[in-house]
């Protein structure tokens, strides 16, 4: 499983990263939105733990870009800035979970594992659909619906 931790608080990420490794969750870290996007483009993690408030490209923008380009990546928001509006917006874009700082490490571990399971199940379902030819059918229907109506 590839996990990416994204937070501008370096000490927080370093400690969290080490604690997750002690629990057999290998992970990589990024300290701002730009670095996170670069990692995602290169290595496409399975699960991303993402802070919302960061300098530069903030977490919400990272989430938008990730879900647009790599919808299969499961994103867990971990933030100290827990406004209802932020949570609502991030759920609308498509997150796996929304957690508030400070978080219990065992809760975070269980949510990361659940997110990974969800991703695998999602891939298997997509594969099964493809095998049954459903994927192609759905894709063709969607393509047809996107075509401009002929006059």
């Amino acid at each position, binding site marked *: 499983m590839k996990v990416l931790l994204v937070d501008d608080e370096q000490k927080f990420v370093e*400690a969290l990263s080490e604690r997750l490794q002690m629990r057999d969750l290998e992970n990589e870290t990024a300290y701002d939105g730009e670095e996170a996007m670069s990692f995602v483009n290169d290595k496409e993690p399975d699960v991303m733990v993402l802070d919302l408030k960061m*300098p*530069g490209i903030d977490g919400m923008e990272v989430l938008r870009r990730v879900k647009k380009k790599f919808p299969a990546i499961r994103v867990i928001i971990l933030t*100290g800035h827990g406004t209802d509006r932020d949570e609502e917006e991030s759920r609308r874009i498509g997150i796996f979970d929304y957690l508030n*700082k400070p978080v219990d*490490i065992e809760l975070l571990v269980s949510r990361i594992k659940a997110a990974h399971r969800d991703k695998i199940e999602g891939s298997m379902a997509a594969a099964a659909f493809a095998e049954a030819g459903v994927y192609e059918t759905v894709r063709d229907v969607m393509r047809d619906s996107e075509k401009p109506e002929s006059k």
Partner: protein
Amino acid sequence: MKSREKERLREMQLAFIGKLMAGLSHEFKNHLAIIKELNGLIEDLLILEVPGQSVNSERFKKIIPGINERIAQAAEMCRVLSGFSHRMDQPLSSINVSDVLQEEIYLLRRFAQQKQVHIESLFDGDLPAIFNNPSLLQFAVFCVVWPTLELLEKGGRIVITGTGKNQSVEITAILEGKMERPENDTPWEAMLPQVLEILGAEFSHRINEDGNEDVAITISSIENSYRDNT
């Protein structure tokens, strides 16, 4: 001052306090999160220890100062917050403009960091004490700085200076960097003339040749007869 204007001013002041408090609570949660993770890391390392043989003592020596540092930062935040809250205890008091504004700049700094804008202060050491409304002065400076902070692009700079002039203090916000001001004033800017009138302060705004802006507020002691307006 009409009651509707008073009500509007009160609403805007509450919004100003709310914005700073929201930023502060986020920062405070960050400190707590770091303390929790570092503390958790020590716990995890302790579990791995063999009784009687501390193999991680060097790690502990590195982790513990990180916890202390965050506790000190959180305590400093509480100290500033307490000072900021008590500014509202009395509508009028003798104030050190430097202390009052340094406090506000401290609270604004995290917003500036998020925007990757640099904010700093430069106050003369011998500013005259002013008898005026400290909370309203902070609000006036916020009305100048906040809209700029929202507009300035990455790499922008805001410098707040304070200079003594006879028995007055000239507070200047030097606003440097790329920004596109909207045609209409923000609600904060629209509120400013009213606030300055209550403070009995003078205002000037200059756009320099390089596009940077200087906004100056000159404040002096206010007569007690203004008390009813505040």
